[in-house]
């Protein structure tokens, strides 16, 4: 219709030249687009602000074989419990107890050198049998032989509804629950002296083969409520909790927090995505984050006075015969879970404490990470593949369509191994990261700023808002096979050291 009108209009004015008309129609169209685009944008943003729903469009769901079935086993009780100080990034441990000391579950083992109040406690009762040290006598692991009969240190209950901020803070610090509270900027254990502007909890796990939090948290409503009420006292602002849009999360009914329903592909469940969409961090501000499964431990401590390090852990991955959930304790030996209807002894496998994107590689005689609630076992990929760089690929995930065919079927489950599928190269390809990165940050530019250590630029580009796990997907899709999470971690460490 516009076309006809324009035609008439120009015919009247005496413009009869074909080219001329085209030019003018072109101009009109551009004008119309310019006028209407902002209006549409406004409408969309108004709709978005009306609810607490967060819909992520940019991202990638990696469907892997071996998701955990929703059945819960109790793992064999682990003989030893291992605490690895490297799980607590940036903490320099100062030991309180020595080898041979007997302790109860919940008794402090070491504290943070830079802040004596932050204590790290034993998940089990027993005897410290070994302190493994590395170069420069750095403590690598503390091994505790568990008692057959567990005894708990009594920290005393706390009436969370009546408690003051100081009481909650003191209780969490003293009982060893503090390491569960992390802060951004820098993605380290929170500094208890600086109150956060808000606290964020993700109750939705979107990472590949992640433990389903709805399942893992079920029946823990009381603990979750107590923990949320308590941490709500630690901030002037709000406690923000995300739950899956179609999920039946025990967290969706807690009071004292703003519940956000999130949907869309991974990283919609990352706490970093939640922060960025709800209340991004500015320079000088601090937010705290707690994982949902750690809220349970905090809640139980507040309700009973006991530090019960029990946790529901998923065992998943394509090499696991019967992937399922276990109840076990932090620091338990991996071997107590992976062999019973799990993997065969001689399997060439990669065992990961955590998910496949940002977990840690552990050996079969290793232990469950302090923060993980999933153990993933996938095949190692240490083999060559003839013409693997050019032949059509049907059995691997890719975001391109360069003779890679994962776009044909988005529901297909893949059996991926640990092969890098190519060698490390300089950054060449652009535009790919943005497709899987929902934060309002330029990923390539911030990575480069970290690499050439320009502190001003890192700050300006949003370094205070990010954690390494936010860059897991960009690392996964990276054609140049650059270690994004490591680059970001080193960048954060540098800023922490230089700016603090």
């Amino acid at each position: 219709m516009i076309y006809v009108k324009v035609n008439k209009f120009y015919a009247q004015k005496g413009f009869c030249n074909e080219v001329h008309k085209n030019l003018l129609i072109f101009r009109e169209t551009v004008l119309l687009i310019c006028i209407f685009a902002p209006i549409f944008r406004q409408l969309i943003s108004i709709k978005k602000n009306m609810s607490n729903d967060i819909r992520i469009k940019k991202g990638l769901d990696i469907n892997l074989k071996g998701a955990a079935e929703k059945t819960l086993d109790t793992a064999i009780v682990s003989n030893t419990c291992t605490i690895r100080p490297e799980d607590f990034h940036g903490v320099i441990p100062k030991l309180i107890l020595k080898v041979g000391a007997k302790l109860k579950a919940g008794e402090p083992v070491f504290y943070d050198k830079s802040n004596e109040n932050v204590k790290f406690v034993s998940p089990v009762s027993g005897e410290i049998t070994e302190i493994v040290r590395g170069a420069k006598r750095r403590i690598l692991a503390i091994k505790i032989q568990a008692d057959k009969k567990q005894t708990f240190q009594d920290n005393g209950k706390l009436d969370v509804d009546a408690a003051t901020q100081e009481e909650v803070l003191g209780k969490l610090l003293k009982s060893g629950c503090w390491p569960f509270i992390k802060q951004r900027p820098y993605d380290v254990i929170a500094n208890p002296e600086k109150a956060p502007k808000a606290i964020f909890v993700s109750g939705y796990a979107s990472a590949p083969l992640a433990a389903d939090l709805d399942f893992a948290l079920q029946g823990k409503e009381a603990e979750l409520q107590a923990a949320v009420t308590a941490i709500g006292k630690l901030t002037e602002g709000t406690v923000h909790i995300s739950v899956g849009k179609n999920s039946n999360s025990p967290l969706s009914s807690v009071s004292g927090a703003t519940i956000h329903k999130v949907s869309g592909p991974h990283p919609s469940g990352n706490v970093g995505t939640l922060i960025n969409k709800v209340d991004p961090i500015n320079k000088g501000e601090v937010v705290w984050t707690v994982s949902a499964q750690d809220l349970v431990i905090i809640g139980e401590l507040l309700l009973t006075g006991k530090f019960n390090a029990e946790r529901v852990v998923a065992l998943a991955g394509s090499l696991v015969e019967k992937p399922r959930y276990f109840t076990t304790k932090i620091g338990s030996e991996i071997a107590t879970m992976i062999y019973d209807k799990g993997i065969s002894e001689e399997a060439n496998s990669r065992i990961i404490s955590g998910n496949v994107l940002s977990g840690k590689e552990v050996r079969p005689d290793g232990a469950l990470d302090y923060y993980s609630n999933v153990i993933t076992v996938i095949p190692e990929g240490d083999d060559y593949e003839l013409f693997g760089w050019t032949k059509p690929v049907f059995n691997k995930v890719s975001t391109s369509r360069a003779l890679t065919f994962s776009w044909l079927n988005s529901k297909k489950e893949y059996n991926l191994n640990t092969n890098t599928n190519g060698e490390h190269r300089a950054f060449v390809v652009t535009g790919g990261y943005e497709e899987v990165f929902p934060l309002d940050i330029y990923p390539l530019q911030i990575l480069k700023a970290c690499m050439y250590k320009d502190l001003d630029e890192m700050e300006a580009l949003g370094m205070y808002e990010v954690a390494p796990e936010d860059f897991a997907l960009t690392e996964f899709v990276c054609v140049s096979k650059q270690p994004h999470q490591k680059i970001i971690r080193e960048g954060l460490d540098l800023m922490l050291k230089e700016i603090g």
Partner: protein
Amino acid sequence: MSLKRRLHILKRKYRGSKMAPAFNAIHTFLFLPDETTHGGTHIKAADDLKRTMNTVIMAMVPCLIFGMFNAGYQHYLALGDIEAVSAGFLSSEFWTLDNFLVGLIKILPLVVVSYGVGLGIEFLFAIIKKHEVEEGYLVTGMLVPLIVPVDIPLWMLAVAVAFGVVIGKEVFGGTGMNILNPALTIRAFLFFAYPTWMSGDKVWVHGAVERAGTPDAISGETILGSLAQNNEVSYSVMDMFLGFIPGSVGETSALLILIGGLFLIFTKIGSWRIMLSSVLGAIAMGLIFNWVVDAGVIGSGSKFYGLMNTVWWHHLLIGGFAFGTVFMATDPVTASQTNKGKWIYGFLVGFISIMIRVFNPAYPEGVMLAILLMNVFAPTIDHYVVQGNVKKRMKRLKAKTA
């Protein structure tokens, strides 16, 4: 013992030695390496740089093959040995063995020299600087034979490739660090070092140079050349679209370039933002020139008249515009790296291409210079796009503290 095992043992043997990069470069072309992930994500996507580069090369192969046929076709057509095509793209006059053989003999050496010299230098630098051989040159080496005239002497090409790879790329730190597109640096070197050769009206058809001045001289002029001299163009629009016209080896067939471009967009390797906005930019400039002519600002006596009066959409078909837009403006290293920046960068590439094409008195083609110019400005565009994000963050902070 299998080949895989033997090569694995050899790889172990060479590890840490000077020959390691050279050996690995060849080894990794046979086998995807056995490297596993450490420290970061435990799984990785299927794509690597080799696959990406290979996809671009695949998109160019039809242009190369067409170029071989076209070299022979233009040669025999100019000599009067054959009739012009009559039956569209699959004309029997075009797809003959005779045509192909002329092209094969002329163009295969160009490909060999381009890859031989370029990869040789890449290997050398990899060994000296002890890093792996990067794949960037695979695409450059394929681009170079496609953007030079068919009769270019091989020594000239070799000198230009050496210059382009060393000055255009290695001094900046190799693949991923260069500012200018290496293939265009090579082309620009040829253009400025041997101007009479590269800008004449003889070099575009095989055999035209050696016959110049003799009684059986033939014309080797491109459409842009005739337009710049305000001559009538003797080719139909269909010929231009299908590519039965003289020009650089691979740039003539807009149809095959279009197919290649669509393939690159489909595979998500080429940036559709740059391609689309570049076409929009060219159309905008073309329309402006058409309007200038219509308004009577430029008369038919002006030396710009021929090119300015070219119907705006014909500009997309003639010369190297299509090829440059699809295969060279989209080079991710030298183009803008932000999505918004790509729109601006692409638009300006198209816009300036047509502008230079019309106003360049010496050589009526502007794509090369337009892309090189925008390569230089791409970081500036990105800077302002990224500053937008930075400003937003600062505004957020101010709103908080105020």
